[in-house]
């Protein structure tokens, strides 16, 4: 366990770059949004929803990919097992998402109580997120971040094991699988049933429950691929 923590420390050895920079970027994007809407002016009817928060999620997908392609070979040479490295990666990804999730929840509280930063902006408190329950909100913003990170890890692992061709193959294979499923549903005339199922699920299950399963699927498959990967 100590070694997992040590490897986690190495993954965040430059805390400004690994943890701080995404928040700085997010802050700048927020400022940009505020400036834009301040310039536009006009009535703020509280429906100025932006998707700029997505930037943070994209960064959370890319960072672990680089961890796998760049840091993994170095760590292996220093006598770290794949298992330890993967556990440390999972730890960092989950902890980082949890912290960012907390930042988003707190910021959305501030946003709500200041009337959208005085401009009616909805930057953090997006309308489809569960309202009221803070813990549910936190889960709903944190788990999707873990999902993106797990996809990033998975792509990085596939690249380590099979190179660029492997990544192409996995992408094409994934797209083919999804297309096949969609065709299957269409063929069975199943879209109303799918829609009905999704509508019947509580929002937390859709935003956190099923995404968690997806993250576990990518994480678990990634581990199977990594076990035979070479530095």
């Amino acid at each position, binding site marked *: 366990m100590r070694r997992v923590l040590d*490897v986690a420390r190495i993954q965040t*050895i430059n805390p400004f770059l690994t943890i701080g920079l995404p928040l700085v970027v997010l802050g700048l994007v927020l400022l940009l949004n505020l400036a834009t809407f301040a310039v536009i002016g006009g009535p703020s009817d509280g429906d100025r929803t932006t998707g700029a928060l997505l930037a943070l999620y994209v960064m959370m997908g890319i960072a672990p990919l*680089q961890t796998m392609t760049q840091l993994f070979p170095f760590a*292996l040479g*220093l*006598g*770290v*097992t794949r298992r330890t490295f993967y556990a440390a990666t999972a730890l960092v990804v989950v902890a980082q998402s949890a912290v960012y999730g907390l930042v988003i929840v707190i910021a959305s509280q501030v946003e709500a109580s200041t009337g959208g930063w005085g401009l009616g902006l909805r930057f953090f408190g997006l309308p489809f997120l569960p309202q009221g329950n803070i813990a549910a909100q936190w889960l709903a913003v944190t788990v999707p971040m873990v999902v993106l990170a797990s996809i990033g890890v998975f792509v990085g692992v596939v690249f380590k094991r099979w190179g660029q061709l492997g990544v192409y193959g996995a992408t094409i294979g994934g797209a083919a699988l999804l297309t096949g499923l969609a065709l299957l549903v269409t063929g069975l005339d199943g879209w109303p049933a799918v829609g009905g199922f999704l509508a019947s699920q509580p929002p937390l299950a859709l935003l956190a429950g099923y995404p968690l399963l997806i993250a576990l699927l990518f994480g678990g498959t990634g581990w199977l691929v990594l076990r035979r990967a070479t530095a």
Partner: protein
Amino acid sequence: MSLVRMSGVTKRYGDVHALDGASFGLAENRIHGLLGRNGAGKTTAMQVLTGQVLETSGTVEVFGESPYENARVLNRVCFVKESQRYPDAFRVEHALRAAELLHQNWDAAFAAELVADFGLPRRRRIKKLSRGMLSALGLIIGLASRAPLTFFDEPYLGLDAVARQMFYDRLLADYAEHPRTILLSTHLIDEVSDLVEHVVLIDRGRILIDEDADALRGAAVTVTGPAAAVEAFAAGHTELHREQLAGFLRVTVAGAGEPPDGLGLEAEPVSLQQLVVRTTQHSNRTNGQPATAGARGGEH
């Protein structure tokens, strides 16, 4: 006693045998040289011993256990490669700190001394280091980690002769104070011939020599003289090399000892480098392979 042992190890990549039934051992607290041509299997051997690559067949034991995904073994291992990649965002100090976190014997003061000796800028991004500085960083990590089992795989591309000598001197001095098991692969055989205590020669995945350096010093002799006398001396021994000029013959033979006086034969010792070259060529001839085959990649 063997601290590290591989027996009959084969590693196949498609139809290429990077290792082909290779067997050799590393004794505790000695400096071993792993010699061989480009593509001979040196890096693969090290990757197998450090659990980075899984052997196709055969057995590998490091500290008495299989190294693959074995934290008890790998905690005591440091592997420095010529082609070592570092994260883009890392500065020199980050790499040193990472190595410190992972090696319990790490000596920070020694590392600082080495950084000063090699003139490495601590704050510089590793991406921006020159080829020589990049190699120096690997050497520093390998030395200061004081890992009980340290692998150096062609660690000094781009380093000048003075820096290389500094590495040899530092390695020897530190090894004397903190004995450990070291495996060093290199093309610069002459440079390390006084450094290594044991020699493993690998060619096309097979081990040709696994012998103490002292024993190798007298293992072969080059004899020059009248053809008939040289032929008589060389008969029955393994002939590694032969050059003929008019009536004179010059032959390198293994296991023949020194020629007796009075036959008009002149004997010269065979350097480790010559021995390695001749043994490799001899092996390639007897295996029906031209001596120039197998050369690929840049020699350095």
